[in-house]
């Protein structure tokens, strides 16, 4: 997926696996305030954060989710390119 090379820019990964819902979502939404297309935020979550997707969509953010073999999920978010 060459259009997804922005995923490699996301460092460090914020580990949110030890938080109860909806704390991971709160952290992510706070971190996303003011994200641009050049700045990528990445977090590890205990599972795919389905309830978060409509919030990201409503904020006009671009995101990707990767499911890991241990059941956790990696989430990358950036602002949409104008």
């Amino acid at each position: 997926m060459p259009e997804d090379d922005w995923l490699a820019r996301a460092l460090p990964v914020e580990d949110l696996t030890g938080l109860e819902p909806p704390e991971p979502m709160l952290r992510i939404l706070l971190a996303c305030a003011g994200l641009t297309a050049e700045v990528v935020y990445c977090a590890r979550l205990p599972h795919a954060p389905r309830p978060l997707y409509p919030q990201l969509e409503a904020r006009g953010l671009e995101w990707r989710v990767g499911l890991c073999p241990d059941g956790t999920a990696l989430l990358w978010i950036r602002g949409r390119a104008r």
Partner: protein
Amino acid sequence: MTFSMASVRPEQGPPLSVPLAFFFTAPFALIAAGVLIAVRGSEGLASMWGNTALAAAHLGAVGLLLFVMIGALYQMLPTVGGAAVPGIRLAHGVHALLLAGAAALIVGQSGGPVGAFTWAVAALLAGLLLFLTPTGVALARSRAEGPTVWGLRVAVLGLTAVVFAGLRLAWIRSGAPTPGVLASPTGWLTLRIAHAHLGFLAWIGGLLTAVSWQVVPMFFLAPAPPRALPWVTLGGVAASLVGLFTALFVDVEPSTVVWLALPGALAVWLAHPAWTLTALRKRARRRKDATLWFWWLAMGVAPLCLAAGAASAAFDSPKLPLVYGTLVLFGWAGALVHGMLTRVVPFLVWLHWCAPHVGSRPMPSVRELLPQRPIAVGFTVHASTLVAALAAIALDSSLAWRGLGVGLAATGCVLLWEVGTVVARGRAATR
């Protein structure tokens, strides 16, 4: 690592008004059951088949559990099953029809006019068809393959079966002619026992176990169940569902029905609590959480349900079925549903109302929407009322029954306070 990004879409759950309408009905059912018992005293409570006992049991099974579980299904299907329920706005029609049907059923069962059963059959049948049809479509369309989705499927089939049996009972009580197999001396009792166990195990047990495989790891950061356990549990529930449903059509002794219920009972009241208590003991984050107390209560009561059910089948005592029904409806499922509401309602209100504003202005946390104190009060009142119920059955005095009525009404009031507080605080924060 598997990338799911290509299929990632905003999975829209129902509007918040849909689950909330169902969740808000539950406290009123508890209050109604409490008022009914407090007014009647010991009248109609000498056995499980007494008027007051039947009406109170259905206020619990339908008014409390059915409404909350249907609200939960509307909420869970899009998020867990990845399949939106078509025509979700019809859910408000389902709510209205079920409310009318449940009210007519309670009027009929508590000694009101026989014609109430006809209205109950019509409204409940219409409401459940309006619920089961789109839900069935969503479950059939769902491409999710985990045990939770299969558990939801089994539970919905269980609901269909228990409704079928229940409507037959209500139809006969409305004065309609008794069909063939039910005309036998034991047919009526067989139908009643099969109806109760389809409800306890296939519908309530099927849904509560399936939901807990999802919410226990998610909300309490506990380990997921071992791979085989959900399938073994599901197998037990499904075996009882098939057996009990078949018993509705053939002339079998009531004792046979008890054996048909055994696989589901072992799965739901023994295997499931064993895993849940182990998982909760291993939870990653150990902070004070009053919602956990409901889980401990329900999981502690579950094996007692099995014992009480076995005792009811083995000994001819009118009190044992009352103990059994109380433990199942109020001590096990009722406690679990009460505890889940104190966790799920704040989460949904935060998700729908607060999350859109995060980052732009301060929003309350879920613990600020519903602090620990009201939950602890709710648990104390719920657990005390369970003890009062068992005492009332043992003593069988009018005063003890009236005390139980006050306890049930108080539990309903506290539950209303809990969910009402969340909605009021959520509204205030986003105004």
